């Protein structure tokens, strides 16, 4: 009955500071979110493959991670049936066009370049959540959900 559903967010990032910033940015938003984090790609895949895992609405994925890179995770995720509709946001410092295009070709929905300032991160996250929310509630075609910020 209530339209302000809790948005579940999962972040995979090996940088502790980035994770802290990320959580702080989410806490400042007016949307209700619950944020969880994992520290690398391996941990992420273990989490998602657990049959009892609560699947997040959005996954923020760092590209450059030890053990398993973000791109490897992305490719695995897109092969998993139960995760096909998961919105994948690539969250990376790289601005190489090749990196960016490769992630989209492999099924990423959003490419978010890690912003230098927390205030900008807040604004950008809010923008991404709003658009993702529209895809959830307005019956938009998720195949066409591509966004670069």
């Amino acid at each position, binding site marked *: *009955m*209530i339209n302000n559903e809790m948005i579940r967010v999962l972040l995979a990032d090996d940088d502790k500071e980035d994770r802290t910033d990320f959580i702080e940015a989410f806490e400042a938003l007016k*949307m209700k979110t619950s944020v969880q984090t994992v520290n690398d790609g391996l941990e992420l895949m273990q989490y998602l493959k657990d049959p009892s895992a609560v699947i997040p609405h959005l996954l923020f994925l760092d590209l450059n991670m030890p053990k398993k890179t973000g791109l490897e995770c992305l490719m695995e995720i897109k092969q998993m049936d139960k995760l096909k509709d998961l919105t994948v946001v690539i969250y990376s410092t790289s601005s190489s066009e090749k990196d960016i295009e490769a992630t989209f*070709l492999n099924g990423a929905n959003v490419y978010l370049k890690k912003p230098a300032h927390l205030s900008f991160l807040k604004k950008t996250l809010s923008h991404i959540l709003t658009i993702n929310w*529209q895809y959830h*509630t307005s019956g*938009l075609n998720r195949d*066409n959900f*591509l966004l*670069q910020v």
Partner: protein
Amino acid sequence: MIYFLKYDIQAICKRLIQGELEHTGLKYSLINANELDINQTLSNEDLKALNSNLMKLGIEIMSSQKSILVQKTKKAIIDLINLDDKLSLCKTSHHLAKTLNHDYRYLSRVFSEVTYTTIENYIILQKIEKAKEMIACNELTFTEIAWRLNYSSVGHFSMQFKNTTGFTPSLFKRIILQRRDNTILEAIEN
């Protein structure tokens, strides 16, 4: 002797709501203390009755009227974009106010409250979504798409597309078509 009490507010609220709903005979599930899923659409009277009973406990069903209005607004916007009616597309605020029979300022305020975005942004988003669909069909040129969606020029269309998605229309097209080819290839390989 004074004893101190500790509360689990969520549990208390759930118990209260359950207590109230038990005698209505409605089938429902409580997603959490803030979200109630009723397995049927309530008539306006039933909803009012339920709400007023809950209000006695200090609980209120939030903005259901408002979300209905937002749904209607969204539908009117999508219809408008699909209708291909250039004249109404020029004056959306006027058209929405007339179709939904509400002052535009009211519509706009309720819309922002419920969706966290504005009607204007929603219209842009929907137009861009429509454009994406047309691009993915690969039948129309960008100029034709711009014209169909009532942009003054292909330049204006491209700019709004870029501002909304971060992609130029041509890069978007390349990625979407390439992705589709990949899926087809995978299907053949399997």
